């Protein structure tokens, strides 16, 4: 018996304990994680462990309760169900509360698990991290050390079953390497990071990660604070992915229903420009957020959010789908077994354009290429749309990359930024996290500096 069906069996068993008039959902998860940290080409730490746990949701008379525990021990599981049951009596009755029922959408066949990662020897994980450290140091004479060099992997299994007929299980593997390089001396220090992600170790590109970290750190050496100005900016693909992540919170059915989305009444409106099409498609196996089932066990599906700049709709889980009468879009997400399902994007991507970065630079002429953003959690308000972040990057002059800048901010609003898109690059990068990256050009952004 595979471990996967073992989890599903446990989830089914718990769901089967539902009493009359009661709905029970069990979400069971297990992961095996390894993390190697290297410092000065020696192993600094090696952690290896398996974690598991269960979250139980109970709905009675429209009232919902939840409990979790970091253990699958039979006595603990029973205690968790008892707590969830007790907790249900303290929730507010709501006609839209209730567990999902199978909706007939077939789950995508996705190959997200690699046996080779499960059997990848620890020594080779350590060797990869050391190789990354050495390669980063060797990439440029101005690299004086690394702030972090890491290898990490996870083998993740989960299963969800409900007394309303949901049965779903899933497993996937992921591994990554990460280097953060320190360039220069003393106060002239600059940092840059590089990484590579894969479903198995043979997909990791050590040289590319090392080169990336070294280049990003060294090209900022000598960076100065720029003059305040309004400029055209080019967001590097990974910056665009971060921006899409913030934007997606405004497109959740939960934010819309609770009056926290600026897009609430705007379905059918032009919220962006005609060449901006934004899709969340967790059935696309190229996305690291890909999964056949959402966190409530419904099949994931391709959801178009913006089509030609026009807002098409929102993402929903079972609750928000019922309450808005539009049905779940298979977009339930959870922060592991410790939380109830929320709503979120997993695999956002902009339809790419055709131009390379060099072509975009030539087109822009004068502007600023942003390679890092700081303070997305503190300076961006997805409810009001205010957007203000610290940035580092390179000035663009005469269509070419010029002097580096730091200690600057870029500010606008999410609403304006969508309207100020000038171009979407053709350079799609599938990144860890919930969004793919692509170079994005925005005009008329306020840069604060000197």
């Amino acid at each position: 018996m595979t471990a996967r069906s073992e989890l599903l069996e446990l989830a089914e068993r718990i769901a089967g304990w539902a009493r009359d008039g009661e709905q029970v959902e069990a979400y069971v998860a297990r992961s095996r994680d390894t993390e190697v940290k290297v410092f000065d080409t020696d192993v600094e730490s090696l952690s290896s462990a398996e974690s598991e746990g269960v979250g139980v949701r109970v709905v009675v008379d429209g009232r919902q309760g939840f409990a979790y525990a970091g253990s699958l021990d039979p006595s603990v599981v029973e205690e968790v169900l008892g707590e969830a049951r007790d907790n249900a009596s303290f929730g507010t009755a709501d006609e839209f509360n209730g567990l999902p029922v199978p909706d007939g959408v077939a789950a995508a066949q996705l190959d997200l698990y690699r046996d080779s990662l499960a059997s990848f020897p620890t020594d080779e994980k350590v060797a990869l991290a050391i190789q990354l450290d050495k390669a980063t140091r060797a990439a440029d004479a101005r690299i004086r050390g690394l702030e972090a060099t890491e290898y990490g992997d996870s083998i993740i299994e989960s299963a969800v079953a409900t007394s309303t007929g949901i049965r779903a299980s899933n497993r996937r593997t992921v591994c990554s390497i990460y280097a953060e390089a320190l360039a220069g001396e003393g106060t002239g220090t600059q940092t840059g990071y590089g990484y590579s992600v894969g479903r198995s170790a043979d997909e990791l590109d050590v040289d590319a990660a090392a080169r990336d970290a070294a280049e990003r750190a060294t090209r900022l050496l000598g960076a100065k604070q720029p003059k305040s100005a309004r400029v055209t900016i080019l967001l590097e693909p990974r910056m665009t992915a971060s921006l899409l992540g913030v934007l997606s919170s405004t497109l959740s059915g939960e934010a819309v229903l609770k009056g926290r989305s600026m897009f609430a009444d705007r379905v059918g409106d032009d919220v962006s420009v005609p060449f901006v099409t934004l899709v969340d498609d967790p059935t696309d196996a190229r996305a690291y957020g890909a999964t056949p089932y959402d966190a409530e066990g419904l099949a994931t599906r391709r959801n178009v959010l913006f089509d030609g700049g026009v807002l098409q709709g929102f993402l929903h889980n079972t609750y928000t789908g019922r309450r808005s009468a539009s049905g779940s879009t298979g977009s339930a997400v959870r922060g592991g077994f410790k939380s109830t399902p929320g709503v979120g994007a997993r695999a956002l991507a902009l339809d790419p354009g055709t131009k390379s970065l060099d072509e975009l630079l030539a087109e822009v002429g004068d502007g600023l290429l942003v390679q890092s953003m700081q303070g997305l959690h503190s300076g961006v308000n997805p409810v009001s749309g205010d957007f203000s972040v610290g940035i580092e990057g390179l000035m663009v002059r005469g269509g070419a990359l010029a002097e580096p800048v730091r200690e600057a901010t870029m500010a606008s609003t999410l609403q304006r930024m969508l309207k100020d898109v000038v171009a979407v690059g053709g350079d799609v990068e599938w990144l860890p996290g919930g969004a793919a990256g692509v170079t994005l050009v925005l005009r008329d952004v306020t840069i604060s500096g000197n």
Partner: protein
Amino acid sequence: MIEEAVLQRVLSTALRTGGDFAEVFAEDRRSSSAVLDDGRVEEFTSGRDRGAGIRVIRGDTTGFAHTADLSEDGLRTAAEAAAAAARGGGGGVREVALTRRDVTRPHDVDVLPETVAKDRKVDLLRRADDAARSEASSVRQVSATYADSRRRILVANSDGLLAEDDQVRTRFFVQAVALGDTGMQTGFEGPGRTIGFEYFDEIPVEETAKAAAGRAVNMLKARPAPSGKLPVVLKKGAGGVLFHEACGHGLEADLVGRDASVFRGKVGEQVASPLVTLVDDGTYSREWGTYAIDDEGNPAQRNTLIENGVLTDYMWDHLRARKEGRSPSGNGRRQTYQYLPMVRMTNTFVLAGEDDPDEIIRQTEYGIYCVQLGGGSVNTATGDFVFGMTEAYMIENGEITDPVRAANLIGNGPETLRLIDAVGNDFDTWSGTCGKDGQSVPVSSGQPTLRVSAMTVGGTAA
């Protein structure tokens, strides 16, 4: 939680491959929380996390494993895995004798949250919802969260240390959304304390709710924040996060040791304005970042980091202190038993100075007055940091005038510390969650009203 004899045998197992140091960290955490949003109590949640993390240090390498199985078999399996990860030659048998350390609690907990009926916790949410909505008709949405946790920890290590702590924390937070002609604005308030249910006698939920709602309503009148360099006055309590980011992280010995801090090699040097004295105080009674012992079993301390502008010391955990042959400072913390400890802040305070807070504002011709900050981040290697203002006003001709919309401020740690030119005689604290290297821990920061003579404000207005 675990018998002494078992701990001794597990530590011996952990040292079997030649480790220099072994440690068992066991944790039993129970938590409860309830969320009200959109006028409804969405659900009451109970959580239980119990397990142990075992680390073995050999030379410069740390091996780590964790388990949710606290039986002797479970602990030994984890000990073997940690020992294998810190692999060495044959180490032979080493006996460990444990000495229980007396732990002095910084304060008593009056009412354990687990003894309070769930309906009383849920009732707090309804009261907060009512209070926030009655603040103004423009308040359109309210979310309130009640959260308590009781975390019992045990640390035993091969140096013979055995210590336990029982940490009880309670927090209540409210977010409000107000709607006006210019769109939506939000307001947040959420003090946390390392105490039990008596929290609500000290901080009524109505007070928290009204503060959040009032902030959202106030921001409806906000004009775009300015863009460029301006003097910034930080209200007492609001600006502690500036120090957390501008220098706190840079004074963590792990980052210093990696040569990833602009403060490396600066002990004894003037790194800040002489008006600045900075302490990290894990003993501060009842505060959000307070504990009796850290997650390595060392007692919390009050550590002076900067005195009259001169850097006096960094913050230390076991590993970095051991490397330097000095004693740790009680700053070794971890999110849960599933993580390795590292150097973390507790309650980081700038001590009060002598200036009259009102006078500081009066003597500022044109600038920003920050009343609440929403968090920040720092690149410790370059010293560049940002923090977000969630409630701020213009200062014009020495008077506080219009509110301004949310924006980040950006600065460079060492430079900003030198530009502090006024420090008030008042003081307050602020509760937050500090994230570092994937781990979150409760911290607080605190400061008197003070002024930075120039910071870059990341707004959009000319």
